């Protein structure tokens, strides 16, 4: 496991939100009874007049956000990924994306990384759903630094955004001064044998996998694809040109998410084999996320073995 210090993305989000609230009086924060979990309670305490708790009513929170946005405010509707993207799916689609309203859907608890709460609370379809909506931008930061930097850009971006964070403390990858830009992937290492394209919490796992691959003499390029929509097509074109294999890594179903987005682009523009690593179209179960990642061969060791096998021409499994 990584020996990097760990920090919760949610905590970084909560801290950034208070600073943003000081700077921008148009920001309003909406919660659905889990402000303590989303770390929005700090904002609520500091700016009570700009915080609204909708209670356990996610659809009402999201449609309410649409109404608030029409008055010139910038609402951040905050809850878990399953609730926002599935229970309030139509509100996001027909009243925020279709109406082009400036609402930010900010979620934690994306993916199997939720662990113990089980499949009802493990969002493994959210990115696919959000990505399929016209006018939506989808941002998935990899660590606390990325969360803090990207949420600032999300607030400044004019239009609907889906912002997805994990549940658990994750290794801090970036230095505090790292620059981020929505739509621009970050290259964390270079290599000519394979390109790993990772999203969210899988970026730090991919870093470990890349180190394991290097010990086997396989040099991997690693991209942090923190913006799933719009994709960084330049970075993907270069990867397809420079390396014979692209491997996508996501804590999400391999259907519809990062892997699908990358495969759609690559097949249409510069076909190279794409191995999609992620949740293999199943509902998982409760348990330690490390055990779940291991079960579905999403841990660093399994990833390194799968990449090495793929490079040797072993059929993808």
């Amino acid at each position: 496991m990584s020996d990097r210090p760990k920090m919760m993305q949610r905590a970084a989000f909560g801290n950034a939100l208070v600073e943003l609230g000081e700077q921008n009086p148009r920001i309003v924060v909406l919660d659905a009874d889990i402000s303590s979990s989303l770390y929005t309670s700090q904002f609520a305490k500091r700016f009570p007049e700009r915080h609204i708790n909708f209670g356990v009513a996610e659809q009402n929170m999201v449609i309410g956000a649409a109404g608030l946005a029409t008055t010139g405010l910038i609402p951040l509707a905050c809850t878990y990924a399953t609730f926002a993207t599935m229970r309030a799916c139509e509100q996001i689609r027909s009243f925020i994306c279709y109406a082009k309203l400036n609402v930010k859907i900010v979620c934690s608890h994306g993916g199997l990384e939720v662990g113990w709460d089980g499949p009802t609370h493990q969002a493994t379809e959210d990115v696919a759903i959000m990505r399929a909506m016209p006018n939506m931008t989808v941002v998935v930061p990899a660590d606390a630094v990325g969360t803090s930097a990207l949420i600032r850009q999300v607030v400044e971006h004019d239009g609907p955004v889906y912002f997805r964070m994990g549940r658990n403390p994750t290794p801090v990858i970036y230095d505090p001064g790292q620059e981020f830009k929505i739509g621009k992937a970050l290259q964390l290492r270079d290599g000519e044998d394979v390109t790993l394209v990772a999203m969210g919490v899988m970026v730090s796992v991919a870093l470990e996998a890349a180190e394991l691959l290097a010990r086997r003499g396989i040099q991997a390029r690693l991209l942090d694809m923190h913006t799933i929509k719009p994709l960084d097509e330049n970075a993907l074109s270069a990867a397809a040109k420079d390396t014979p294999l692209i491997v996508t890594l996501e804590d999400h179903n391999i259907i519809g998410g990062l892997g699908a987005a990358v495969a759609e682009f690559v097949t249409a523009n510069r076909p190279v084999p794409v191995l999609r690593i992620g949740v293999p179209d199943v509902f998982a179960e409760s348990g330690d996320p490390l055990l779940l990642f291991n079960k579905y061969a999403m841990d660093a060791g399994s990833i390194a073995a799968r990449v090495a096998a793929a490079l040797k021409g072993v059929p993808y499994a």
Partner: protein
Amino acid sequence: MGHSMEYDPGLLATLHRQANQIRQESIRMIAAAGTGHPGGALSEADILAALYFSVLRIDPQNPHWPDRDRFILSKGHACAGLYAALALRGYFPIETLATFRRFGSILQGHPDMTKTPGVDMTTGPLGNGLGAGVGMALGARITGRKFRVFVLIGDGDAQEGCTWEASMLAGFQKLSNLVCIYDYNHSQVDGPTYEILSLDPVVEKWQAFNWAVRVIDGHDMPDILDALAWAVEHRDSPSLIVAKTIKGKGVSFMEDQAAWHGKAPNVEQAEQALKELMQEEQA
């Protein structure tokens, strides 16, 4: 019922004429398009006339004026009535109504705030207009603006759970700048509400959600004006006006007929409907 205010006969005549025009234009639009929802457009016409020609503080030349009153047609399928009201009020030319539901038109099958001047909220999927109105009313509170928010809901909206989530929050937050008007025509696509899913008791339900409630005849103009005046003056809670209406009001063969929820009249039926409405206009 006695009215708390005496209204200028000129105002009442204007509002009656505009309601009649909204009905006529709705029939023309839907017949020309060969598709649309006449029943609800006819039942809401008097309410729309009162709002657009007397109550709403709006400026058709400046549809995005930040301090304007907001109107949300939650029962978005009945948008023929809304488009007619907006055109008659001067948001766009009357001739535009002929493009209703056609390819390239600013008048979509259900309201689209990005295409139609004067439409404050995109609607159509039922049950969402009140929640959007709650957001606008909260936005007024946060930004310190004095505008009022009016939401028109129908029976279908009242059956959707989201309406009750919004109702609960509005009552709890005491959103006195929010007025909901319930076009209570007791008729939905599959038939009368009392056969499918009754909304009764309406008054008690909304009172239990901490709303002030008043029941009126939704086709009686002084009744409508009284209730709207009462609602905007009311403090400490949101207000609901239960407007008892008749689906298809003003066209004899459409009145109280669920079959006319989402069906366009053919040429003969449209001629008959317009004949009746023109007779009413002259009366």
